[in-house]
């Protein structure tokens, strides 16, 4: 009984006491979580874009992030100026989008969702093999400064302590917010954005009013390619550009569950919840489990959440009929 009470205390009370006793450290942890949450959210955003328009669950989003970052860095290493490398990389992502639409999606219209998922896993294998073949497997460092980002950090004195903000993290947060705003305007105000939403609502109805599915699909893949590039730059600036990013990108799947597959705000809020929750859990509860809980926290959180709200936070509730 005593050990049980002690365990309960260690699990339910002690972590909060830790949080209150060192508020500056808590703020630092929350900030770290916030930043990684933004990055999860960016990956999830790429998923959502494609899922909304084509009901394809794009497993290759993670490898697209790595691929885009690798193209950018390798071009720079070859002596191409940073701004030109950026433009060429965007062009490469556009080419990728076109060829995916042309060679894969167009032929798999109306197939079972598991088959579409498998096709994107096949695409993952192709991109991974090609990336390693062309760029080599070893990690590369991101060209942060050349792209005009500051690599310094600022301190903020609060609660008799210091919270450190990396400039690149602040830039990531700002860019993510801008990107979501731009996407929001794009979806609701532009002609193509409205066509996109029409396709998402009903493929056949969209076709019958003259919207070209193929064109829309190429555009969303291009858009999520650009999202992947931005994510790759941000993430690459925090750690190296390597294929290990791919596994981290899988966490965006848990974010998707929390937010709902079709919701842009859901991706952002879900990303922040996963990012912050994961860091807090790792720092304050992790030692109880022997550490490394970051690997599964997001998924288990998503699993428990789904038991109570199967459609995610912002997902649409479907009424099923026979």
């Amino acid at each position, binding site marked *: 009984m005593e050990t049980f009470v002690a365990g309960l205390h260690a699990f339910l009370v002690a972590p909060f006491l830790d949080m209150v006793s060192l508020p500056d450290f808590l703020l630092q942890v929350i900030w770290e979580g916030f930043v990684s949450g933004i990055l999860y959210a960016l990956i999830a955003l790429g998923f959502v874009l494609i899922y909304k328009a084509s009901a394809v669950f794009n497993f290759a989003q993670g490898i697209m992030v790595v691929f885009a970052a690798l193209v950018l860095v390798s071009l720079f290493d070859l002596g191409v100026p940073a701004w030109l490398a950026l433009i060429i990389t965007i062009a490469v992502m556009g080419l990728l989008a076109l060829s995916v639409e042309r060679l*894969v999606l167009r032929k798999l219209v109306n197939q079972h969702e598991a*088959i579409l998922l498998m*096709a994107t896993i096949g695409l993952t294998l192709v991109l991974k093999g090609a990336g*390693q073949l062309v760029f080599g497997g070893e990690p590369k460092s991101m060209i942060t400064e050349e792209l005009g980002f500051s690599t310094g950090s600022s301190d903020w004195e609060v609660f008799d302590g210091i919270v450190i903000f990396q400039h690149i993290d602040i830039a990531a947060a700002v860019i993510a917010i801008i990107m979501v705003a731009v996407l929001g305007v794009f979806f609701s105000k532009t002609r193509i954005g409205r066509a996109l939403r029409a396709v998402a609502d009903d493929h056949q109805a969209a076709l019958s009013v003259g919207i070209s599915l193929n064109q829309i699909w190429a555009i969303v893949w291009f858009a999520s390619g650009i999202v992947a590039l931005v994510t790759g730059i941000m993430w690459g600036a925090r750690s190296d550009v390597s294929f290990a990013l791919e596994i981290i990108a899988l966490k965006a799947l848990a974010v998707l*569950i929390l937010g709902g597959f079709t919701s842009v705000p859901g991706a952002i809020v879900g990303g922040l919840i996963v990012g912050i929750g994961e860091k807090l859990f790792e720092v304050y509860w992790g030692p109880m489990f022997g550490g490394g809980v970051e690997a599964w926290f997001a998924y288990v959180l998503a699993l428990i959440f789904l038991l109570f709200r199967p459609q995610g936070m912002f997902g649409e509730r479907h009424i099923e009929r026979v």
Partner: protein
Amino acid sequence: MFYREAGQFKTTYEADQAMLPIAQDRVGLLLILLIAFAAIPLLASDFFISSIMIPFLVFALAAVGLNILMGYAGQLSLGTGAFMGVGAYACYKLATLFPDLNILIVVFLSGFFAAGIGVIFGLPSLRIKGLYLAITTLAAQFFLEWCFIRIGWLYNYNDSGAIEVPQRMLFGLAITGPHATPITRYLVILTIVAIMTLVAANVLRGRIGRSWMMIRDMDIAAELMGIRPLFSKLSAFAFSSYYCGVAGALMVFFWLGSAEVESFDINHSFLIMFMVIIGGMGSLAGCFMGAAFIWVLPVILRAIPSAFELNILAATMEHISSIIIGALIIFFLIVEPHGLARLWRVGKEKLRTWPFPYAT
């Protein structure tokens, strides 16, 4: 001409409900079994048996397990690798805790642990389906992987963190451990896989299997017709995980000899999912075809450079084969989304009417 059921009359209900109603199918299956049980052990080299046939059988069994869940019960799962791991670690713990227990019993018992874990992680399937469910099974994958690393008790606090297979005898022959010959290991695995496939085939065409298929085709309609979704979905998870667990135990005990967490990572889950999809969802024969295709293809690809005396680095070849396999998977999905099993069925239909294609 050769493959035709004309003249084969069924005069009893038993004959009508037989698993293979056509005589040619029975002969074909017997031939395959004969080749597998007699010809391969007698003629094939040790290399062929231990690096092609044994892994092929292990993966085929795991694919059967996943196919039960995905192809028959319609529940997507990405946690196959972890369920195999549960079977393997349970088998290791049982074998070291009860050294006198017959190893075959241990293997079959370890499947029950995987089944139990499978039911727990199958619980969300009662509320969610499709891709959402697939992602929650990722929770199983990563959580169990973490357990395999952090819980030292599972691998008896080895310094290496790996599980080493102890030697076990059956009828005076070493069947596991370093002294077991490939042929004995192959025959043990083959027997287990053959029996378990037979059981699966019969469960699938029985009452439980039919209720799984009803759930797959439309779960609400099935519920209205009196199928209990709770029981059906969870039994599908239990059955499937049992098969995956036994496959995992076989993989470590009869193929690898020792294993670490990497043997059960998410890439294995994908590998087995590929086998099921390439082979054909909802087909047992497809599991074997898919496993053969996905396992043998990279082996052949790796052998190509040395056959043509090309000087390609092993790592480069690895990347090239990754590209080729990825492209082939996409190609297959486009050409025949229902897998190799469907191609086989189409071929059989053609054979029935040959040489008069319009004579039905």
